[in-house]
């Protein structure tokens, strides 16, 4: 869903994969939810079941001839989702989000759990965009450290792309007041 490199002629450093956005997604999804089990409090890692869910959804749509797999996967050992074109992957996400699939065939904790499927499918979009356009990739070699142990190693590529100059102490853009409290309190 993110802009790709060669298509738009950017340097290879702006590729979402090189930026590690998938790692941002995986670590975030694995940390997003934790619950109390009988004796211990533990995280519910979601990245792996989400991957299975995407493959399962892709397979259902392929079987229904709604999407069409390519001859090769982009990734070694990739499942059905990775055999789809970009557009078909978006179609798969859309089908999941609209629950236009057999939810019984999805893995736990998504099986017959429409609310959770909607929540997570939406989150995949948002997290990807936040990972790509925030400063996260610029934590470089420290980006997978715990949040308090990271340092910015270069200027965030997403910020550069959109023309955001980065954290600022202030801007001399004061154009006066249209209205003041003194005026309305009299």
């Amino acid at each position, binding site marked *: 869903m993110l802009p790709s490199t060669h298509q738009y002629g950017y340097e290879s450093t702006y590729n979402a994969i090189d930026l590690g956005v998938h790692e941002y997604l995986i670590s975030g999804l694995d940390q997003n939810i934790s619950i*109390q089990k009988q004796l211990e409090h533990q995280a519910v890692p979601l990245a792996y079941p989400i991957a299975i869910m995407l493959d399962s959804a892709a397979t259902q749509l392929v079987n229904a001839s709604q999407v069409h797999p390519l001859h090769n996967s982009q990734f070694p050992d990739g499942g059905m989702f990775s055999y789809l074109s970009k557009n078909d992957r978006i179609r798969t996400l859309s089908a999941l989000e609209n629950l236009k699939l057999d939810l019984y065939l999805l893995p736990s904790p998504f099986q017959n759990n429409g609310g959770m499927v909607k929540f997570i499918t939406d989150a995949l979009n948002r997290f990807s965009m936040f990972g790509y356009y925030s400063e996260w990739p610029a934590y470089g070699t420290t980006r997978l450290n*715990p949040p308090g142990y990271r340092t910015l190693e270069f200027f965030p590529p997403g910020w550069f792309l959109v023309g955001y100059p980065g*954290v*600022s102490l*202030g801007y*001399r853009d004061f*154009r006066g007041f249209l*209205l003041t409290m003194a005026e309305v309190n009299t």
Partner: protein
Amino acid sequence: MRTEPDVIVIGAGAGGPVIAKELGELGIRVLVLDAGPWYGNKKWPEPNKNRGQVKESSDPKDLDGALYRNQLTRLENDMDDLINGKFRWGPADRRRSPWFRNVPDRSLLWQVSGIGGGTLHYYSNSPRAFPEAIDNEWPISYNELIPYYEKVEATLPVEFAPTTTKEALFYFGAEKAGYSMNQTLDVTSTGYRPQPNAILPPNENLMNPNYSMEEISHMEGCTLSGLCGQGCPYGPSLEKMAKRSTVVSYVPLAMETGNVSFRPNTFVTKVLTENTAGGERRATGVEIRDTWTGETEELRAKVVVMAAGCFETPRLWLNSDLPYNSWVGRGLTNHYMDAVTGTFDESTLMEIVGSPSTYPFAGHTSGARLDYPGVGMIETLGESPGIAAQSLFGFSQYGYNSLQQNDSNMWDQRGRLVGSELDEAMKNYSRTLSLLIITDDEVQYSNRVELDPHIEDEHGPVPIIHYSPSERSKKRREELTKIATNILRKAGAKQVHRSDLPPNYFIHIHSTMRMGYVVDSSCEAYQVERLFIADNSVDYNGLGGPNPTATTQALATRTAEKLALKYFS
């Protein structure tokens, strides 16, 4: 606090510190508990890494502006990541997961634990409610609230936002669209105006090139550094920081009274009660859990105030087995929001505002508004790239723009953008103006917070949240979206994108413990003596559309007066 406090306040967000300061000034001893960390307090130099040497702090000398500045990096991922940002709903230890709320739908929740709560992250918008949304609706009148609004506005203080490029463009569009300026705090007709914001006016030397920006950032006043949601650490000292989160306003003032102590890292799991001789239930204290050690403890007081927010307050009521009330957690409103983003040509911008960019990242994040009593409001929005991408182009009930047939001539694009569309939209970031649509949504009994029957965290059953707008709310949102789009077009936008945000977008949350149903007009629970509420949950409705914080702070000021009179006079 060495001896038992008179009052325990649960939550140090928008409301808790206000009631604490007011009570403290009357000589009443208050302990305020909050589940999250404390930024800017020397007792917790590394609040996200360890639990600190002490449990609470009441000495204003503990407050440290330099430390606050060091901790609030203003980096969007570091501050606002929903999973492990410094401003999140979760424990101080960022290696741990956030606290789970089950919203079985597309959803985005901006809630913050910590001293300051949601005001760490808020844009400081402090408008009063629309009078018509209070009068003949609430059990109290708008006039009754005015002196409390005035006190809050003077204390924070509140001032109308200064004009920067994006506000100038908005005012131009609003004028062209036929609206005029509403020169008032008490809005009874449609019009635009600057946002009344709890942000100090810019320093008089901001535009003076003889002062460096570094120098100005250590002086009093807003530096127009933008992106208020990432926290504001600019000012000469902690209590003079430009953005008036309660952690830099009401918290220091409360500590100055010598009667108020704040305790972070403390999650309240239960309100304790006893039965009186007359057969009534009465609050006697709370059960707490230390978020670092897991130790539990019971604390006693004469009065308990819940100010934990619209999800946590009803959850706490239900987890405490307090008396059954069919309206606890019910009637949730959230201003059913939408957003439109206009993209402008450089030449148009040069002509209208004399600059090649809208500078969405400069000035108050939300500095201008259009009020429309009976329907809602519209406000300007200038977010950082990652937050703008995810909340404007990544979050929609419409689905993917590229998969839909565009059958509208109102909007060039609608819904989620991906690939080259997203790339294009974000490359225009510095020439965009976004408007947030905030609907006067109707109270419905079916919109609710309840306990999840299957999922618990370390504090008991988690809240499960359901919200779906009424037909009237949907119509109102549609009308506001058209008005906002028209303002952008009139301002010269070449392209307009409509986000079509999903209903479960929780920024302004209200009315889950409504006055007249769960609490009386003094905000004391009908069914539990000595138990008060001081957060947005007591709102009878969604205030007509205006941002909720000022009203919560005015009500908390009023509740302090009532509470003191009844139990401590």
